[in-house]
């Protein structure tokens, strides 16, 4: 479902709940208003009925002749009140009760009219009293009962409406929670997936978003990020390759020297063989030819090393001895170091525990660090390679130290940033950032310390192989 629809639906649900609450409240308040108005009218009627009964008492106790006339006047007023309020009274107490009220009033009216006539003929007051008083009591009792019932009803409505409001409140919260769960929690989960991928991209890991891609706006964003990831991974690979080709250029000078010696040996053996052929014993001839073959093999190995270094290869993690890796890396740049008039010192610790690494990759890092050291160090300088067990006992450290010009402090913090180079147009600015990425993939660290005019030391830390691969 598209996010726009989801958000609209969630909002619509909220609005419906609020409209329902409003409708129920409106209905409840209307009913309450009608009831209260009735209670008001009923109170007035009740007061009037009470007055009628008081007049009644005046008549019978003090023989007040005017009392009945007063009662009759009040009855007429009450008729009018009941008549005029009829629709609203019916609405509240129902037609049956309304008619009963009318009947009670009518009976009282009749009783009073009869009493008035009989009083004119001076009949026995006791008899008259017997007729009037029950009718009056009935009227008052009935009206009081209705008023009480209505008051109860008002209270009921208030508490019911309180309950309804509370339930609706609960319902709204429930709708909010559920809509959040169904619509938004998944959306936030997906947003988090995007966030994680963006973070790993910024760390140089181009891992695509895996799993189900939703069919909405976020899904489109995820697809876009995935194709960007693919593109970045390809570009990154190309950059690494171009960086390698660049450092290959630096290596070439050294390789020329490395190849020069076996070529010279072959040439000299061949020349001597031609010169002395007739004087050489069969044994010596075999020895000469074998030397040529040995030297050819030496050339083949040099070329193979160079090819291995320049080729983009699949990951190949193996249990390795750090010192071996260091020596093999040094071999690749040994001649470049010599040609540059530099010396190397090896301070390798024996019997170090093994590491689990992609040897080609670590060699690439070391060759890169060594090449940087060569570029930074003037002739006569020294390059020191050191291996040690880290103080924590869980890592091996490899140090590449030079006595070169050093790196100014303001450059140090950017040294592992891609495309940051202090070599001007000579460097691609990728070597150290690629090295950083490689060491990070090995769950290791790479740090740099430098002092201008004194030298620079790069320290690589690699975890010791514990039997768990990766």
């Amino acid at each position, binding site marked *: 479902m598209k996010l726009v629809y989801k958000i609209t639906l969630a909002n619509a649900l909220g609005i419906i709940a609020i409209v329902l609450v409003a409708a129920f409240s409106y209905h409840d308040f209307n009913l309450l208003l009608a009831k209260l108005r009735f209670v008001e009218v009923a109170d007035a009627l009740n007061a009037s009925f009470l007055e009628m009964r008081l007049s009644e008492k005046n008549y019978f106790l003090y023989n007040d002749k005017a009392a009945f006339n007063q009662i009759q006047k009040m009855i007429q007023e009450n008729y009018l009140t009941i008549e005029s309020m009829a629709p609203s009274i019916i609405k509240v107490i129902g037609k049956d009760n309304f008619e009963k009220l009318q009947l009670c009033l009518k009976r009282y009216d009749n009783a009073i009219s009869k009493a008035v006539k009989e009083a004119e003929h001076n009949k026995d007051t006791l008899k008259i009293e017997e007729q009037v008083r029950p009718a009056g009591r009935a009227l008052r009792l009935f009206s009081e009962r209705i008023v009480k019932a209505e008051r109860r009803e008002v209270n009921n409505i208030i508490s019911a409406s309180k309950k309804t409001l509370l339930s609706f409140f609960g319902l709204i919260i429930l709708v909010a929670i559920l809509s959040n769960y169904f619509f938004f929690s998944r959306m936030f989960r997906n947003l988090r997936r995007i966030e994680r991928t963006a973070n790993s991209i910024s760390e140089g890991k181009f891992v695509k978003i895996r799993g189900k891609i939703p069919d909405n706006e976020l899904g489109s964003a995820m697809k876009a990020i995935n194709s960007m990831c693919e593109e970045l991974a390809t570009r990154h690979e190309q950059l690494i390759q171009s960086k390698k080709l660049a450092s290959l250029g630096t290596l070439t000078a050294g390789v020329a020297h490395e190849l020069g010696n076996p070529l010279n*040996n072959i040439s*000299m053996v061949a020349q001597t063989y031609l010169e002395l052929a007739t004087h050489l014993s069969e044994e010596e001839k075999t020895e000469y030819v074998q030397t040529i073959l040995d030297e050819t093999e030496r050339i083949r190995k040099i070329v193979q090393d160079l090819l291995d270094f320049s080729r983009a290869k699949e990951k190949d993690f193996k249990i390795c001895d750090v010192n071996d890796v260091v020596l093999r890396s040094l071999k690749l740049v040994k001649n470049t170091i010599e040609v540059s008039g530099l010396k190397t010192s090896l301070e390798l610790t024996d019997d170090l525990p093994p590491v689990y690494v992609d040897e080609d990759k670590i060699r690439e890092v070391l060759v890169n660090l060594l090449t940087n050291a060569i570029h930074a160090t003037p002739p006569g300088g020294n390059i020191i390679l050191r291996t040690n067990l880290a103080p924590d006992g869980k890592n091996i450290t490899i140090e590449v130290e030079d006595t070169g010009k050093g790196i100014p402090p303001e450059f140090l913090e950017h040294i592992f940033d891609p495309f940051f180079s202090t070599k001007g147009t000579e460097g691609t600015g990728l070597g150290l950032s690629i090295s950083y990425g490689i060491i990070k993939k090995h769950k290791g660290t790479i740090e740099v310390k430098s002092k201008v005019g004194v030298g620079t030391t790069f320290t690589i830390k690699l975890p010791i192989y514990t039997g768990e691969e990766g």
Partner: protein
Amino acid sequence: MNGYKIMVIDDENVVGKMIKSSFGQDGYIVEAFLDAKPALERLKEEKFDVIITDLKMKDIDGMEVLNRVKKEAPDIKVIMITAFASLDAAVEAFRKRVDDFFAKPVKIAELKACVKRLLEEKN
């Protein structure tokens, strides 16, 4: 048998061996060393006519050998050979009065001609 004494210093074993075989055929007495240090020691006990030394070596390099020989026994002829023939190295070597300079791969016939010429100069 001309009896001239030649010292070869080169960390490449084959170089000394071939020079020994080829020059030995012409009556030279050749001693080969893989490192400069024992070679310089040997110089103290034995007189050599020509030294053929490599430029790049592990302990002491060819320039240093040239320096010491020219200082201590200037009449010994020194020929330098190198696999990495840079103009800078050649200039420096000639400044230090090297007698000749060869780039690898070395032509043995040319080397022989050079040794012969240097010995004639010496005499």
